[in-house]
């Protein structure tokens, strides 16, 4: 049936090659996924803040008054559905501001120029450090920044 022994060997080897390549593929995907999981855990651990900081809605009067949002390493504040801290109000932009940690300090930066971000009544133009009880105003919403030290 086969002209030479070589042809037979070649055909048998074709199964071997297919098996080997598919095995490498499956193993690569599996290993890559495992590594991704390990790495994600490491990142999630990083996201946990050193201080238990949060922002609380302090104005206006309404159902949302007094609602607290714990802060992570990076937080996007806005009315959009993808925001970390979602403020579904018409006066708040889709992505309005961000509060982030740098060198164990919290900073706030505006993400939109149009509506503005006010800290203690001042409009901020660049990233500004937050301190305890700072009042942050986004649109008609006022938030108060609270940092509770660990222990």
């Amino acid at each position, binding site marked *: 049936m086969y002209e030479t022994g070589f042809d037979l060997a*070649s055909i048998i080897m074709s199964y071997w090659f297919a098996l080997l390549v598919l095995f*490498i*593929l499956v193993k690569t995907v599996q290993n890559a996924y495992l590594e991704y999981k390990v790495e994600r855990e490491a990142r999630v651990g990083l996201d946990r803040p050193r201080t238990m900081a949060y922002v609380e809605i302090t104005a206006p009067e309404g159902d949302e008054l007094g609602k607290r949002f714990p802060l992570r390493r990076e937080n996007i504040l806005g009315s959009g559905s993808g925001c970390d801290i979602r403020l579904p109000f018409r006066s708040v932009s889709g992505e309005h501001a961000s509060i982030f940690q740098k060198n164990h300090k919290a900073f706030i930066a505006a993400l939109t120029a149009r509506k503005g971000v006010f800290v203690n009544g001042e409009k901020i133009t660049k990233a500004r450090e937050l301190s305890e009880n700072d009042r942050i105003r986004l649109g008609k919403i006022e938030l108060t920044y609270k940092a509770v030290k660990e222990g």
Partner: protein
Amino acid sequence: MRLLRRTSAKALLFLIILFELSAFTLLAFRNAGTLDIQALIVGGAMVALLLFQYLALRAFFKHVDRYLLIVANVLITIGMIVQYRLDPETAIRQLIWIGVGMLFMIVAIVVVRHIKTLLRFNWLYMIFSIGLLALPIFFGRTTGGARNWLPIGPFAFQPSEFIKVAVIFLMAKWMYEKRRTVQLLPLGLFVGLCIALLVVQRDLGAALLYAGTALILYYVGTGNWIVTLGTLGLVSAGAVASYHMFSHVRVRVEIWKNPWATYSTDGYQVAQGLMAIASGGLFGLGLTRGAPKSIPAYWTDYIFAVICEEFGILVGLAVVAFYLVIILRGALIALGARDKFRALLAIGCTTLLTLQSFIIIGGVIKLIPLTGITMPFVSYGGSSMIVSMILLGVLEGVAIDNGDWLESAVDEKKR
């Protein structure tokens, strides 16, 4: 920090080496009665190269993305085996290009980590890119209907291959620094001009690749779907216009619709490729038992058909899946990147590598009209191999940067 890197990739590398060695041993016996020592030497050299690359990278860069490396090595290995089976002399040249490519990869890794200062003269690079892309129009050599090769002494290279890397870097830089759509207009003009030059050279595959990559990168960078859709509409309109304006585009589309109608003339390549894939079946005819030389451009653009014919469609599908793994790893690298510039670089390189492979694989399997372009890591070609390696190097550079950053952050947290 054993926590981060504990799963084993070395075992996978040894499987690749096993694959390589068994294939080359088989090839060594293909001439009845004589043992082809050269095959064993080439196979051994390839193994040495793979081991050297992997071990050297692991030694110098702790956080190198090993799975990207494994995927690239599998693709290179498959390409190398097929090249040697087709023509030993081309394979030896390919081996040299792989070695050169690996050096370029290391250079790319080092350069990417200090890239921002180098990119300060971006206007200069833009003018240079346009100039280099325009050169083949005047001094170029025509192959396969496209005037895109630039001869320099004994060598010839494709400027479009190298400029695509520059385009990625420039796009990433501009979109990192400038946020408003209006400010990005010069960049749009630059990319548009590049694509126009490629169309003039009749290098439609490269034009499609540039346009697709630029659009994806723009959307990823800005999230502005109005402009993206508008540009997509513009590009589509351009494609329709070129269908009516140029006869060679019309011919390509006709072939795509029915390659059998013009089997003896224009449709020959596509029809032959389809027959080769079909004759391979699930597990292939067996190495050396097919007739790949009946397909025009079997060693570059049509190598996917050869793989399917001799290794079978299962291996062909695995090749596609390996490109998908590149997308996944590339996206993860981009997500973990420290800043938007690096994220955009990673996404750009991933898009270039994978979009290019899908344009050519899609063409070969008659999913889209065929446009001549090489298959990254697999096809024969110096320019193509070096550029693929550079793109891989950029991705690895960003990955190493991520790893270093994550490790220092975790260590700091522990203290």
